[in-house]
């Protein structure tokens, strides 16, 4: 085979490998099963799930936070001794990714990216980023009261994480009031 043809073949192979690799990144990646996250938040024995409907005033507040209508008309949560767990999904750029949130005393105490489906921005799964949410609460304007530093190249996923944190805190406030009233 002439040298130029060999070079061309090598380049095409390299290109095909790179294309294949980028395609692989586009696939869904599960870092932790949602059920395992919920179980972990309650020392292995989670309570029965409950649901909250995002309709009426709560639906409007959720839409204000998300910048679009809520993805689900109702969200499932697990609650025991003032600790609630939420599994939320939000689109960063093109595909929704799944994040678990643990909330206690109106503050985020733990968060983990569970399933990631975007091609870029997966750095939001790393603890150096997720740790920033620990201790975050909601202001009267329904915004996070803690500063969350962004990640270059993951701007949309970072924004989606902020929106999910605000939504989880909003929903937690709602169910806390409901359960206190009962």
């Amino acid at each position, binding site marked *: 085979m002439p040298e130029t043809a060999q070079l061309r073949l090598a380049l095409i192979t390299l290109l095909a490998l790179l294309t294949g690799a980028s395609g692989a990144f586009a696939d*869904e990646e599960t870092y932790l099963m*949602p*059920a395992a996250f919920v179980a972990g938040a309650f020392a292995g024995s989670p309570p*029965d*799930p*409950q*649901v909250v409907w995002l309709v009426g005033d709560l639906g409007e507040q959720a839409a204000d936070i998300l910048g679009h*209508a809520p*993805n*689900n*008309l*109702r*969200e*499932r949560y697990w609650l025991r001794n003032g600790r609630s767990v939420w599994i939320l*999904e939000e689109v960063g*750029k*093109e*595909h*929704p990714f799944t994040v678990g949130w643990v909330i206690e005393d109106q503050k985020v105490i733990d968060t983990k990216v569970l399933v990631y489906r975007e091609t870029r921005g997966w750095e939001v799964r790393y603890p150096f980023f997720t740790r920033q949410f620990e201790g975050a609460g909601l202001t009267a304007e329904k915004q996070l009261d803690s500063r969350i530093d962004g990640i270059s190249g993951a*701007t*949309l996923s970072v924004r989606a994480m902020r929106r999910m944190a605000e939504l989880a805190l909003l929903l937690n406030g709602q169910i806390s009031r409901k359960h206190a009233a009962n």
Partner: protein
Amino acid sequence: MRRTSRRKTTLLRRSHYWIGLGLALPLVMLALTGILLNHTDDLALAQRHSSQNWLLQVYGVQPVAPETGFRMNGLWLSHARSHLWLNDQILGESANPPTGVALLDGLIVIAQPDHLRLFTLEGAQVERIDLPARITPLGSIASSEGKLLARGKGAMLITDSNFLQWSNFSGPWPGANQPQALPLTLQQQIAEQLAANTLTWEKIILDTHSGRIFGPWGPWVLDFVAAITIILAITGCLLWLRRKR
């Protein structure tokens, strides 16, 4: 000696001018597409689609439509190109085709191998529910007396009306909704919608910038343009130096 040098300078200048003229168009194209790519998020280019016939032909996008679907009270649910379709409207993303569908208390329940998705009849998603491990991968679902039955891995489970608790079910399996041939008019409508929602402007601009839109040789041609641009920069510097002398 001076005459030879002047001739060289003239040759260099002419080459520089003509090469520059030849590169003007591809460089403008690269610059414009580069600017657009820097602002894909702001311009929401990944969310905007092109339905231009000639572009679809360039990409070889063929009309594809699902041939079968699940029928429920006059509604059709089908799956094509990683999306669930309710009649001719996209219901949501889904990598896998549904394994079963049931209509329950005004909700459409769509079964996937490891989860359920609930939708209103208007197409709004109510919830996505992960299934208990003892019935995944899920075989099929059915409804019985307002409750959902799920079958998989040899086990049958029944859920409460809120889909919160699952318990074993030992009664007779009522039979599941089976896929049927999708009406041809609906197939055509979905094919048209698919064609109109396949190509994003982000992909078109990215492929124009890289040259891939021009075929297999496109990237090589743009590599050549890039190499010539480097030469142009060098000849430009040489001309500047010679003029200074």
